[in-house]
């Protein structure tokens, strides 16, 4: 949503009139809001939360940083370096896969299924398994960081290649040149805006992967420093780390957006959220094959993974083992009740947070479009907040919500709220001026504008965000269950792992991944149907 800044400046789709505050430059407004937040933060920390080992005042955070700046900068450098390597490898892999999917269309479904499955794998459970393969060193954090970015970049690159103008492709074809030439001369150029939007999302994701990776054993890094500081009552230190991580993640997000605009100034940046889902092939048999082939590919990968890395049978569980654990061994009923009981808790808290996040985001986007000065003041903050790694947000949410089941809901809501808000708002600003003109000529009220113009234009963005939010919500939920609540399937996985119970671990991973993939496809199917009904031209 780097587009926000430009669209905000020119925004043709705004209702006329409004507050006097609309004339205040956006920079002044958001600075004012920023200063107000800092003052309130300082005040709360010095009064309500004084001596509570929870909230450090901003002034103390600054003092702490300068006192130990060498320590902080070394750890920040280490984590950033890890994230940068993961970012590089993960994005290269994603782009290679996107190229393969574009050049060899029949591979597309299978590659997509594998990449989606990898994205749905619960991080906290695969970290120890990766550690088993790579051994000591920095390879596990880098690998986790790479895995965290593959899916979104793959989707973004694919969208970019697909967005190549048909006329340009026709020209290449009319010269009798093949797919490869079309790819080189047309698709690569066309992909730049979408690709950079994907890379923007990848920056904070890579950071999260690096920090979770540090939990599997390292000498330094921000994740380790956080755990140490928590145990030692060093509240100022926790807040310094949170602030540093926010600045770096937001900086990465903005820098990549700027680079994208520099490389491709002629086109507004797009968001991955705008990806239309592919049409299903007609015919029951085709549909069935389209569904089964990717599943088969995932299972082949599962076996290949165990075989290639030569993982010991004690750790390595095959699909057959997982099935047996769930349905045929004597402890199966007990395993089922543990896994599905915990899964129920996770799904309940997650879906509540998911719905609250999406509905809240849509409502906020509407408020922003109707009250432009509010958008100018708050949107830059929303863009920044969107890129903060969840591991940093969690302690802050615990501060305000506590450690109950609601914590998971709150964390999931926050995770789905910000991306959806930014996507929906941007879509609303692109409401065709013609529609608004018609409404204006009828002297329509704001309510009518919302109902007839803004809501319908934001539907594709909302649905796309909702689809991407399925796996990220489950990721957020399991991290929250691990760090904060001790409930649900996240807790089952961590307990299984610390007790060396690899059977339960693999069963949980398999079940949760299947749930995430199914959730993703359900939303995708709903999205497809809705788009077909609303605007047959949009979905291809």
């Amino acid at each position, binding site marked *: 949503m780097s587009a926000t800044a430009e669209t905000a400046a020119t925004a043709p789709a705004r209702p006329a009139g409004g507050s006097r505050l609309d004339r205040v430059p956006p920079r002044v407004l958001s600075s004012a809001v920023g200063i107000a937040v800092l003052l309130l933060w300082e005040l709360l920390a010095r009064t309500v939360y004084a001596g509570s080992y929870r909230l450090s005042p901003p002034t103390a955070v600054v003092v702490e940083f300068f006192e130990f700046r060498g320590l902080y900068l070394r750890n920040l450098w280490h984590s950033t370096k890890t994230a940068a390597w993961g970012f590089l490898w993960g994005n290269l892999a994603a782009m290679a896969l996107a190229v393969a999917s574009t050049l060899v269309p029949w591979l597309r479904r299978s590659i997509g299924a594998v990449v989606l499955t990898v994205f749905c794998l619960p991080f906290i459970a695969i970290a120890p398994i990766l550690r088993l393969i790579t051994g000591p060193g920095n390879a596990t954090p880098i690998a986790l960081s790479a895995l965290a970015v593959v899916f979104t970049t793959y989707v973004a690159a694919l969208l970019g290649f697909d967005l190549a103008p048909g006329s340009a492709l026709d020209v290449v074809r009319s010269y009798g040149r093949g797919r490869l030439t079309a790819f080189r001369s047309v698709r690569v150029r066309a992909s730049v805006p979408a690709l950079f939007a994907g890379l923007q999302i990848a920056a904070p994701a890579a950071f999260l992967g690096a920090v979770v990776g540090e939990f599997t*054993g390292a000498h330094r890094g921000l994740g380790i420093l956080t755990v140490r500081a928590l145990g030692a009552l060093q509240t100022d230190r926790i807040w310094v780390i949170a602030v540093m991580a926010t600045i770096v993640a937001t900086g990465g997000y903005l820098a990549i957006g700027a680079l994208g605009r520099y490389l491709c100034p002629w086109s507004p940046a797009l968001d991955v959220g705008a990806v239309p889902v592919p049409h299903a092939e007609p015919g029951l048999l085709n549909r069935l094959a389209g569904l089964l082939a990717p599943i088969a590919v995932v299972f082949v990968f599962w076996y290949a993974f165990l075989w290639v890395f030569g993982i010991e049978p004690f750790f390595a569980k095959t699909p057959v083992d997982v099935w047996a654990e769930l349905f045929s061994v004597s402890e199966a009923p007990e395993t089922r009740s543990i896994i599905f009981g915990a899964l129920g808790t996770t799904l309940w808290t997650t879906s509540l947070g998911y719905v609250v996040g999406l509905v809240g985001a849509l409502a906020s986007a509407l408020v922003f479009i109707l009250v432009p000065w509010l958008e100018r003041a708050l949107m830059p903050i929303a863009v920044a907040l969107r890129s903060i790694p969840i591991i940093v947000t969690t302690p802050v949410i615990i501060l305000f919500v506590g450690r109950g089941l609601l914590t998971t809901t709150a964390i999931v809501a926050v995770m789905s709220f910000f991306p959806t808000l930014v996507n929906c708002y941007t879509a609303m600003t692109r409401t065709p001026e013609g529609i608004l003109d018609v409404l204006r000529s009828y002297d329509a009220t704001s309510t009518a504008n919302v109902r007839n113009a803004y809501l319908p234009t934001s539907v594709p963005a909302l649905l796309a965000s909702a689809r991407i939010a399925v796996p990220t919500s489950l990721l957020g939920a399991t991290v929250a269950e691990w760090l904060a609540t001790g409930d649900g399937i996240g807790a089952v996985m961590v307990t299984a792992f610390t007790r060396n119970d*690899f059977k339960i671990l693999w069963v949980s991973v398999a079940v949760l991944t299947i749930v995430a993939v199914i959730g993703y496809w359900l939303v995708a199917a709903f999205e497809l149907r809705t788009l077909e009904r609303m605007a047959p031209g949009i979905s291809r």
Partner: protein
Amino acid sequence: MTANQFSRRTFLGGTAAGAGLLLGGSSLITACSGSTEPPPAAPLTPVNFHLSWFDSVQFGGSYLADANGHYAGQGLDVTLVPGGPGVSPDTSVIAGQSIMGISAANFAGQAKADGAPIKIVGVAMQRNPFVIASLTSNPINEPKDLEGRRLGMAFNNQLDLELLSSLNGVDVNAIEVIQADYDPAPLVNGEVDSLLCWLVDLPVAMTVAGIDNTTMLFADFGYAVHSQTYIVTEDTLANRRDDVLALLRGEILGWQDHKADPDTSAQVTVDRFPDAGMDLETETVKAHEFVKLMFSDVTDASGFLWWTDQSVADNIRVLKALGVNVTEDFWDRSLLEEIYAGGPVL
């Protein structure tokens, strides 16, 4: 002798001048411990030793063994691999990435019961370091005090709490459990009345911060689970017994140095990991606490890492109550018997 080994090691490894300085400072202790290992004739054998947590004075003896040249003196080039909340040393040992790892009898026992071919060859903490920590103004002195109170703990300690309760006739359902992990703040802020944690961890942080606290050691109430246990695979025992013996000897020499001078051990730990931001005062308090947990009449009589047959019987009984079924052959004391043939001090 020691200084000699030291420079030899420095030459071999090409260690930087800074590290040499650090090592030089601590060679004093080695001189006191009177070690008599011969200088290595062959090149050092590289091995990984997987610790159970992030770098900490909890492994102070191992850092001293490295700094004072005890590992090198045994012909080993030891890499001390850090642990963390997302990694289990048992897996590293079972997968053959580390020749030895530090675990606890309950975790390693679960792996053993599931068919992992591992054995315990040393026990650094015969007394389990789990405690219930509370504020002195609202103390928990015995398990019964937990009833009707709020307890903050990591969810994967539920079984341990149930066991402590059943051993002491406490109604576990009368304890209100709240998830809290690695963090004393909930207790200090009054969100809970007590915390389940390690004696040498959160209580020390509170003490250093000037908060009066009371601790109730699980080990004093029937919870007999060996902790900081050294584990190896059966395959390693059969084929690389000499390397394991050498590593254990190096460890024992390092921990003898730690016991002789915990303050220096804390200093060496803090200097070794400048990026960890450790506080010397806190680490010094911990270094002394670890001596209390790791050394006892048993180790005075038989040597560091030793355990008694009685404690094995207690462990088997308690582990069974935790749902972990192991037998005596999970413990193998033959290496320590060989090492301590000449007496309880090396």
